[in-house]
């Protein structure tokens, strides 16, 4: 639709411009506010990263030292303390649970969007209702069940729980992406002779891949950061990075710099995952084929 788009684009631009001109003061105020909020969010992270490179003694100064001799000592301590297996556990639980979630959520989301099953609203409510009970309230029965089947301190226990925990959110997210897909694409594929499975694989999934990336990122973040299940259901063998982090908090001695180094290491994979997914995310969901 070259002609209509070309007509629409300048119109939209003037619409954006007009209020911006009128509210110039308001918009600069908003910009300042946005910067303050942005810095407010970023500062603790900056502080964490800086502290990770400090000596313990430097970490406790008030006001915090901005200029100091950086050291990798804290990172060495963290690795000496054996973060390795914890990182591997976290990685394994995160990756496997995310793959499982996507594998289950994609067909489920399809069934509640493009080809809706009966009572779709009820199904959707059921999914989201599983997030309503506080995890704390469920931990005792979960513990009992896990204990009875002999799966305490087992990484697969976490994988199952993380999958269950992320599945409802993933179904809801994927559903919204599926709904953006024009149903004519599926109809065209079926007229062209594709089976449902093939039209999903060849036509729909490439279209919603940015949405899948976003969903995967959310699942990765939630699973990677999960603490409550991990601390209650694992011990030495299956424990994940958040559990390891807490191990650094001691009642005596200095631990701020060490803790920050470990936290920086723990945050790094999520930042990397977000950075990788970003390219896919900004592709957005604008489809060239429909108007």
């Amino acid at each position, binding site marked *: *639709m*070259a*002609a*209509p788009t070309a007509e629409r684009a300048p119109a939209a631009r003037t619409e954006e411009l007009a209020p911006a001109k009128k509210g110039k003061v308001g918009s600069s105020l908003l910009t300042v506010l946005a910067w303050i909020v942005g810095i407010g969010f970023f500062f603790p992270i900056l502080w964490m990263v800086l502290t990770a490179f400090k000596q313990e003694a430097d970490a406790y100064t008030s006001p915090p030292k901005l200029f100091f001799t950086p050291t990798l000592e804290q990172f060495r301590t963290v690795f000496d303390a054996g973060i390795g297996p914890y990182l591997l556990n976290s990685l394994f639980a995160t990756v496997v649970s995310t793959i499982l979630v996507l594998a289950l959520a994609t067909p489920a989301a399809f069934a509640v969007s493009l080809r809706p099953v009966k009572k779709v609203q009820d199904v959707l409510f059921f999914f989201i209702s599983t997030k309503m009970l506080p995890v704390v309230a469920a931990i005792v029965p979960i513990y009992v069940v896990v204990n009875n089947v002999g799966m305490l301190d087992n990484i697969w226990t976490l994988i199952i729980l993380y999958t269950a925990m992320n599945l409802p959110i993933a179904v809801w997210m994927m559903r919204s992406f599926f709904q953006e897909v*024009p149903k*004519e*694409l599926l*109809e*065209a*594929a*079926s*007229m*062209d*002779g*594709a*089976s449902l499975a*093939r039209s999903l694989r*060849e*036509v729909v999934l*490439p*279209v919603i891949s940015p949405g899948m990336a976003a969903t995967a990122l959310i699942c990765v973040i939630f699973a990677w950061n999960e603490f409550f299940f991990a601390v209650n259901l694992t011990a030495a063998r299956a424990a994940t990075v958040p559990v390891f982090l807490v191990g650094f908090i001691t009642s005596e001695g200095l631990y701020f710099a060490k803790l920050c180094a470990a936290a920086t290491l723990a945050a790094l994979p999520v930042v990397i995952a977000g950075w990788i997914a970003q390219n896919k995310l900004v592709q957005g969901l*604008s*489809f*060239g*084929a*429909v*108007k």
Partner: protein
Amino acid sequence: MAEVEFDQASRIYTAGAKPAVNRLDLEIEDGEFVVLVGPSGSGKSTALRMLAGLEEIDGGQIRIGGRNMVGVPSRDRDIAMVFQNYALYPNKTVGENMAFPLKMRGVPKEERASKVRAAAEILGLSEYLDRKPRALSGGQRQRVAMGRAIVREPQVFLMDEPLSNLDAKMRVSTRTEIAAMQRRLGVTTVYVTHDQVEAMTMGDRVALLKDGELQQFATPAELYDQPANAFVAGFIGSPAMNLFTLPVSEQGVRMGSSELALPRSLRSRISDAGLSTVQLGIRPEQWTVGADGNGSGVKAQVDVVEELGSDAFLYAHLDDGEQTPVVVRTSGRSGARRGDQIALTPTSEDLHLFDPSTGERV
């Protein structure tokens, strides 16, 4: 290639409610170009989607090449469809889009490539084969959608308002291209539009639908010259036919204060039907305009003059006490102006008569 039959085909969305398509009967011949036309909600798109296998057939049958299609999935019907928004696969190139139906049917790669090249040649898309749909203009996308339909030589083409997203000029040129291509390929085509000009210019025959019911299925000329009922008469033709409900008099009908004499053939049709009032249809070109005061003719006052160059349309109202609107076509530069008093006389003997209670042609 095949003939297509709708045999009492119905689509009922909610039990008890009025069917979206009600007992539709159409026999479309092999190689024919048939246009389904009607206002929105007439069921024309639903009928097409039933043929496509995208809607259930709740009653009756639809046959393609004599084979009953009830329960047959779209992909086994050997039909191709061009959608209103084209429904191109956004992640595939133009070439891949056009090759997709062949790929799904297991056509070998080299054959696919040569067929796609041939179709692209016909449609003038050769240099765009490696582009993604989003890098194409609306007209080009439309042609890719056509290309995807023609590469695999289906038995039937279905087109659902394929021109409605194009600008006016492009619509006219593409209209001719589609009609020419259909005649060259000789593939049975069912085309849906709400635009009666498209219907009249493209179709071998036109099926006019309203509220899920078939009103008339005939050639464009028949539809124009012998509309089956008042609805058809009003829908086909632009500007629309003038329709007046008038009391029957001795010499013809009474139009306000004056009497409009009708030829004997028409008078006998009225008396045969035993009507005391009749709906009279006069097309805008079936009037002659005289200056007021000639004595004969129906008096009217011009409200608006639409000067189109080759001809002009006068929008006037009758001096019948009810200001009944009337449209008249005259030659261009007739000199008529707003406020002019004119006298109108029907020129033709082929005026249209309808029963006012049923709307049926008399």
